């Protein structure tokens, strides 16, 4: 079965530190890739997405992610985190095949940024 692995379950950083959250998936075909964020008490919201083209994608709030096909990875990065980035981060993958629209999700990474 296809799966998505997020390597870091809990990350604690100080403000201004750099962030990289790992995401690997197991599907070998064409994929659409997503990072979603859930701030405390709020809905899941899209941070960024990759469908095709430039493998380095930029999202909201200074986040970016790089798709490396050979490594089946889509790692999330931010050069300098802020206290307001404290949230749960989820990587999700859609297998781009036919009518398939479902997302397969990682377990999530809880990020705490200390002021």
């Amino acid at each position: 079965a296809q799966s998505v692995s997020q390597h870091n379950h809990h990350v604690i950083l100080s403000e201004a530190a750099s962030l990289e959250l790992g995401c690997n998936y197991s599907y070998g075909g064409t994929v659409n890739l997503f990072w979603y964020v859930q701030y405390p008490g709020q809905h899941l919201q899209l941070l960024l997405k990759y469908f095709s083209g430039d493998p380095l994608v930029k999202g909201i709030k200074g986040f970016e992610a790089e798709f490396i096909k050979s490594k089946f990875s889509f790692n999330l990065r931010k050069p300098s985190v802020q206290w307001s980035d404290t949230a749960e981060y989820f990587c999700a993958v859609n297998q781009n095949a036919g009518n398939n629209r479902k997302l397969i999700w990682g377990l999530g990474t809880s990020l705490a940024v200390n002021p």
Partner: protein
Amino acid sequence: GAGVSQSPRYKVAKRGQDVALRCDPISGHVSLFWYQQALGQGPEFLTYFQNEAQLDKSGLPSDRFFAERPEGSVSTLKIQRTQQEDSAVYLCASSLAAGAYEQYFGPGTRLTVT
């Protein structure tokens, strides 16, 4: 504009009871998804509608789970004879078009089965 709304936000059911969870997608969105999120886990896909057609129900865990979207807008997820393992947050998401992959999520319904 209005986002995806779900009701109730919280539901406590005794084991064996039936529950119905409602989702109002963003107006005009063609696709609607249901996910189940257990504590400390990522969401898990349950089912997907395109308009009123249920195109994928491969994630429904048992025949106690049933979803419908009769008029292609509001959707209801029904769980019959609830069990403790059904306790989770049930998330609804919608997307604009059949080919659009970006999903917009509601706040979820937290179901607790006692």
